[in-house]
């Protein structure tokens, strides 16, 4: 079954069409359409309760969708139980069988499909995850990272059409998590199977995935490559959830061709019309976004040296923290109360200390415009509180 599925190239996309899940009156996942191309590393990113795990479980068959259809390739698998789908899952807590040793855990899927000679395949798979010497151990005798690799091996040995990973690195400490991110990426490149990875860690999603879908409140807010999502967020949630954004409430003053000019707290700012995700018209409101690392900081005395054509804002340094490669400043400005600026520590200007009057300036092309009707704080603070 899986043999034919994984060899038929081209038609192996995962396609969700109008899929949704409701529990009573709670909409865990609102009707959504999603296509995951075959062979890609796809991440579903969002805070807890955003519906990402439910979406994953519907692909696995562990959850029955309220509406909609799940396609694997051209095949409608919506009604199939999990044990008939060519899909395997790496569970959040690994869910290794405690009564079986590592060898039997990895061989489980093969044996259930009636394959008799499993020795060679299990050995190969344990080598792939570098656990060849641990075959006879029980799961509880392994460290978290080793258990995690067993869980990956146990799923991959079945050559699934799609591998689903449900927060697979959530239980590991930071250093090990970094290591496993690279490890998983290596395995994915090696086996070429579609990976769908659910995570709440934006850094993890951006490091590993080719395509990231940011989910919020049961909906996909935005989908794209990590760089695209970071540079061109379309909603305040994406802008704040992926990295940090400074969002300035502004009013559209005029539109010159493909340049929009806005006013905010007395300052005049410009941004490309092509980077506004909201319809703009003179007099309308807009949120102007700029990433903290795109901003340059100059002491007020040097204001004259700033080249023309750059967006500029004045303010006072409220706080600064030195973190080695860069210094993070919080600027108090009439335009925006807590403006964040990250400056590389190439040449440090000793005058840039808390209390100093400064001018912030950046290339207008780096600004983006968002619909002002949204919650400006969406996506903030939800990142860290649920790491537990």
């Amino acid at each position, binding site marked *: 079954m899986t043999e034919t599925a994984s060899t038929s190239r081209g038609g192996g996309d995962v396609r969700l069409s109008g899929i949704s899940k409701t529990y009573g009156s709670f909409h865990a996942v609102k009707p959504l359409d999603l296509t995951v191309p075959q062979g890609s590393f796809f991440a579903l990113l969002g805070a807890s309760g955003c519906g990402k795990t439910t979406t994953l479980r519907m692909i696995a068959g562990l959850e029955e969708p309220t509406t909609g259809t799940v396609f694997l390739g051209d095949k409608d698998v919506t009604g199939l139980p*999990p*044990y008939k789908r060519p899909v395997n899952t790496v569970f*959040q807590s690994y*869910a*290794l069988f405690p009564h079986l040793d590592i060898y039997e855990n990895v061989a*489980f899927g093969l044996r*259930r499909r009636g394959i008799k000679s499993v020795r060679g395949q299990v050995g190969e798979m344990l080598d792939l995850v570098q656990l060849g010497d641990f075959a006879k151990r029980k799961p509880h005798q392994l460290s978290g990272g080793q258990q995690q690799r067993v869980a990956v091996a146990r799923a991959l040995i079945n050559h699934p059409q799609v591998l689903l990973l449900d927060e697979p690195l959530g239980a590991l400490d930071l250093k090990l998590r970094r290591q496993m991110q690279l490890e998983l990426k290596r395995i994915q490149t090696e086996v070429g199977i579609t990976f769908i990875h659910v995570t709440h860690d934006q850094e993890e999603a951006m490091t590993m995935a080719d395509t990231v879908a940011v989910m919020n409140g049961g909906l996909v807010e935005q989908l794209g490559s990590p760089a695209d999502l970071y540079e061109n967020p379309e909603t305040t949630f994406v802008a704040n959830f992926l990295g940090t954004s400074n969002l300035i409430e502004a009013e559209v003053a005029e539109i010159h061709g493909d340049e929009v000019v806005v006013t905010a707290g007395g300052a005049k700012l410009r941004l490309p019309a092509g980077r506004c995700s909201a319809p703009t018209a003179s007099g309308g409101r807009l949120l102007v976004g700029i990433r903290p690392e795109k901003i340059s900081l100059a002491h007020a005395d040097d204001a004259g040296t700033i080249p023309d054509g750059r967006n500029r804002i004045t303010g006072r340094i409220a706080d600064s923290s030195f973190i080695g490669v860069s210094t993070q400043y919080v600027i108090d400005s009439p335009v925006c109360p807590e403006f964040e600026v990250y400056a590389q520590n190439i040449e440090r200007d000793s005058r840039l200390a808390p209390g100093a009057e400064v001018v912030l300036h950046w290339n207008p092309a780096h600004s983006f415009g968002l619909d002002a009707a949204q919650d400006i704080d969406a996506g903030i603070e939800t990142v860290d509180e649920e790491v537990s």
Partner: protein
Amino acid sequence: MRWLRRNIVVIAGVLTLGYLIVPNLVVMVFSFNKPNGRFNYSWQRFSLDAWKDPCGVADLCGSLTLSFQIAAWATLGATVLGTMIAFALVRYRFRARGSINSLIFLPMAMPEVVMAASLLTLFLNLGARLGFWTVLIAHIMFCLSFVVTAVKARVMSMDPRLEEAARDLYAGPVQTFVRVTLPIAAPGIAAGALLAFALSFDDFIITNFNAGSTVTFPMFVWGSAQRGTPVQINVIGTAMFIVAVLLVVGGQLVSNRRKKTAATT
């Protein structure tokens, strides 16, 4: 004084152990007695007579066999039913789940004599003939709560994701149950079964009310104690004690060795 303070835990432990073991030792020692009269209550002299002929007393071995049979069937019935009830209570949400959860404890809380008398009333009103079957039904009934309690504790601590993982790895519902659910729940089920066997085997009160003319081992001991206690009763008691201890020690050894080999490979 300081010596006492330092060793108080050991002393308390030894005293408690003695408290637990001395009655058993009395049973053992008196199985080698040769009493003068009909009562085996005072030590006369050492003899192996009873051990050489454990079935020498009329009806003793018959009642023992019957008790074993009832205990075996009651264990089987209570374990199967109790395991299913425990799974249903933990895994499924249904109406009256809460009340069933507490009703299950009722037989444990009810005074046994009252339960015995009420059961007799019930059987008589139903027109049932007292004997093997009424005793078995009664035993399964009161063992059930203990099995449910033991299995439930185990099932509650089981991660439901293990079964999801099994289903995800191509195991159908039956395979999932046999390969994953059952092996993981096994310690709880075994504990429930052992408890059921022990409870059924030495139950006297409920059995005595509902046995009719059938005589189980505890009833035999009670009956003979009225007229004189044969030494063979102590022989049977000692033998069972030794078998139980051997089973426990053997089990410990096996699991210790398994742990050791798993750790060294």
